[in-house]
């Protein structure tokens, strides 16, 4: 996968993950053009389109478009499954995920994506394992800070 974009029906970007090096300007240009192209598609059209020299796979979930750019040798149908898996992960994590969750917790959406995909490929095919890793990592930060706080409490009492 070269990149993944999440955007709303009004074209507002909610998440952008780039797996190829491009300048900010180029990214903005690509995003703008691609968003326009996808939003112009009619509902009856298929989920794949050719754009520049890439294959674009997109799917709409409620108010969010999930859009991936894959290479020639990549399997479009399985990419749809990848997108679906990501949505399932978000759903499990946030509990019936909606666009607002991703807006207000975008950094978490990234963390989840980074536990599922790495360098554009799936690193873990078990839903359970991805969620477990995220939970643990979340705890990691908590326990760390908890420890930090607790120690300081003890000190102050003394």
């Amino acid at each position, binding site marked *: 996968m070269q990149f993944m974009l999440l955007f709303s029906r009004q074209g507002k970007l909610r998440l952008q993950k780039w797996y190829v090096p491009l300048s*900010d300007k180029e990214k903005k240009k690509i995003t703008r053009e691609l968003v326009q192209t996808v939003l112009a598609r009619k509902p009856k059209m298929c989920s794949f389109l050719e754009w520049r020299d890439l294959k674009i796979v997109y799917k709409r979930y409620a108010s969010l478009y999930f859009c991936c750019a894959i290479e020639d040798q990549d399997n479009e149908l399985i990419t749809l499954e990848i997108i679906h898996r990501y949505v399932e992960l978000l759903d499990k994590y946030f509990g019936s995920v909606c666009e607002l969750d991703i807006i207000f917790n975008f950094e978490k959406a990234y963390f989840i994506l980074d536990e599922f995909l*790495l360098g554009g490929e799936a690193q873990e*095919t078990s839903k359970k394992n991805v969620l477990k890793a995220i939970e643990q990592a979340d705890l990691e930060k908590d326990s760390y800070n908890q420890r930090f706080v607790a120690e300081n409490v003890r000190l102050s009492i003394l």
Partner: protein
Amino acid sequence: MLIVCWSPVMVEVWNGPGDKKTVEGPSRMPAPIRLRELIRTIRTARTQAEEREMIQKECAAIRSSFREEDNTYRCRNVAKLLYMHMLGYPAHFGQLECLKLIASQKFTDKRIGYLGAMLLLDERQDVHLLMTNCIKNDLNHSTQYVQGLALCTLGCMGSSEMCRDLAGEVEKLLKTSNSYLRKKAALCAVHVIRKVPELMEMFLPATKNLLSEKNHGVLHTSVVLLTEMCERSPDMLAHFRKLVPQLVRILKNLIMSGYSPEHDVSGISDPFLQVRILRLLRILGKGDDDSSEAMNDILAQVATNTETSKNVGNAILYETVLTIMDIKSESGLRVLAINILGRFLLNNDKNIRYVALTSLLKTVQTDHNAVQRHRSTIVDCLKDLDVSIKRRAMELSFALVNGNNIRGMMKELLYFLDSCDPEFKADCASGVFLAAEKYAPSKRWHIDTIMRVLTTAGSYVRDDSVPNLIQLITNSVEMHAYTVQRLYKALLDDISQQPLVQVASWCIGEYGDLLVSGQCEEEEPIQVTEDEVLDVLEGLLVSNLSTPVTRGYALTAIMKLSTRFTSVNRIKKVVSIYGSSIDVELQQRAVEYNALFKKYDHMRPALLERMPIMEKTASNGPTEIVQTNGEAEPSVVEAKHPPPVTQPTNQANDLLDLLGGNDVVPVIQTTVPTKPASAGGELLDLLGDLSLSGGPAPAPATSVPSSQPAFLLDGLTSPPLFNDIAAAGIPPMTAYNKNGLKIDFTFERANPNPNIAVITIHASNSTEADMTDFVFQAAVPKTFQLQLLSPSSNVVPTLNQGTVTQVIRVLNPQKQQLRMRIKLTYTHKGSAVQDLAEVNNFPPQSWQ
């Protein structure tokens, strides 16, 4: 709620896990607002301006917070910055802060820091290199989640330098028993290999027992890694072929094993892994009989047992089909695969139909008969609503046309042409012409089909079709009367479609006598007078709808009729009027024709006689003529391709003097066959036909894909032609000498036209590695024209062991000083090199 007061200054308020506020005590600045707070605030903005104001205010606060080197809130501030960056606002001032976060000991800091690095930094900035050390440390961190962050970041955006520095660490982690890290290391290694292919070797030992892992994550990423290595190196590919049995076994287990909740997707066990294994098998089995045989059974099994009701099953079937078609599978298996695709075509899910058409397009050459069986379904897809499906169906339909089904198929395709979107029309028209040419059951049918295309999609027909059609018509001798009659009638209806008008004008010019004589066998001959015909042609000349090119055709057609019609005076008048036309092209022609009337009238009949049959070139595909487009200020140059002309009878050489000096000779001129038959003359014609007539040929509409227009230049690529041309004794020169690549220019004068300089480039390589994929391009200023022939090869061998030669022909009618801009691209030692250079040191004799 828990309030913890752990210093006189800081008070922490807990509302539950993850929801923590740190509030400053009385004596400091207020704490920066929380991320969610900011998001909420920004979303209340009602206008873009309001939003911008809020953002600017917050950015200012964040900037001063950064300046104060505040460790506590850096994480929060960077997170806010990332949000604002996603909205499209600049966030570069946060780059260094990300690095500080990465270096922090707190996990939360690192998490946001790495995220920020991945979003804000890219390998173009030097700043990102500062990450290298942090990442190195974190790769060895005691906490696996920190290691994970480092691996993820490196695998996502690591530059070549970083990859080189850290490859060793990645390799180490690839051998760990911790599957959480191992799987990430594998994908990180893939990225390293993509960035620095030479490092591939070092990962080889670690791959030894990757496939014996039980963990699916590791298995999946390992297969990805193996795939990458096999794709990049034939040696690796040969080495890993021995894994085929193991891969087959793993795949078998996935299919045969019962329900596994952890990896199940709609009843299928780990489809992601299945698909990747199938893809790797494809690469390993390609071209190898033994491997292909070893995987035959499992492929058959997958193909027959996979559930097709859901997308996930079809995804696996799709990959299976691709594999079957690519390896050396037995014919039964191939038929099975094509049938799967045939079933896909009938699936309600348009996505499935789409991939089916794509796959069929790939296999139609090799398994033509099998695909033919599904022809009617494919043709039905022409009526699909989806644009991508229609396009594929169209391409596939053309691929399936053969002598047996031509009539039926053409009916469908012409119907499609009538009703399809403009973006398809050009391709469809070209496809129809090609198919008609190959399989036309009769000449009449052929002409009719062409007429149909010209009249329905006339304006979308590619410019290169015009010469092709003209040639076709010329060669269908018995149809001339019919053709010209039909074209004439079409003109009466509509003169807006330029390709149609051009072909029609040309035909009327050639066969106008047949038109007025009323001889037509094929259909009812029409009664038309010479004056009526001339009216139509003159109408083209004055119409606003006609392009300059079309006007050229019309004028020439009128001229030709002077030997076929009796009303010569009328023609003389028209021709002399255009002698003062503003259009330089028309003016030139008119002046020349006038000269024909006045001074060379004895030659006129011979000059304007009927065109001989033109022989077709061997293939209709593109010859190797490379055309270069000038960059920025040098001119746009293209080789306009005249019809192939084998040299017919010799004519007087003095005609050459009359017309040879003027290189602005339009493409379809009767003067073409009258040039001397010498090789040099042939070149002259064709070069002369690189005219400015009609201005630069308009580029095909942007919807047209990248297929090359068919070039029909004959005999141009054969080197012996140049032996006839006497070298004019111009000294050679070195045009470029850098990084071991040296390019010399040697000169010849193309006899007899002194305006053409023939330059041969000699590229040599003094380094110790070959330069592969060598492409030489050149551009010249507007007053010149340039033609680049195909190179002798595109590998410049190492250590001056050989040279790549390529011929450039430069037309310099205005005798201006020759300048050239050249662009060189090649691959050297694994990396792509590109360079631009100006060449200004041409010896004066080359252009004077």
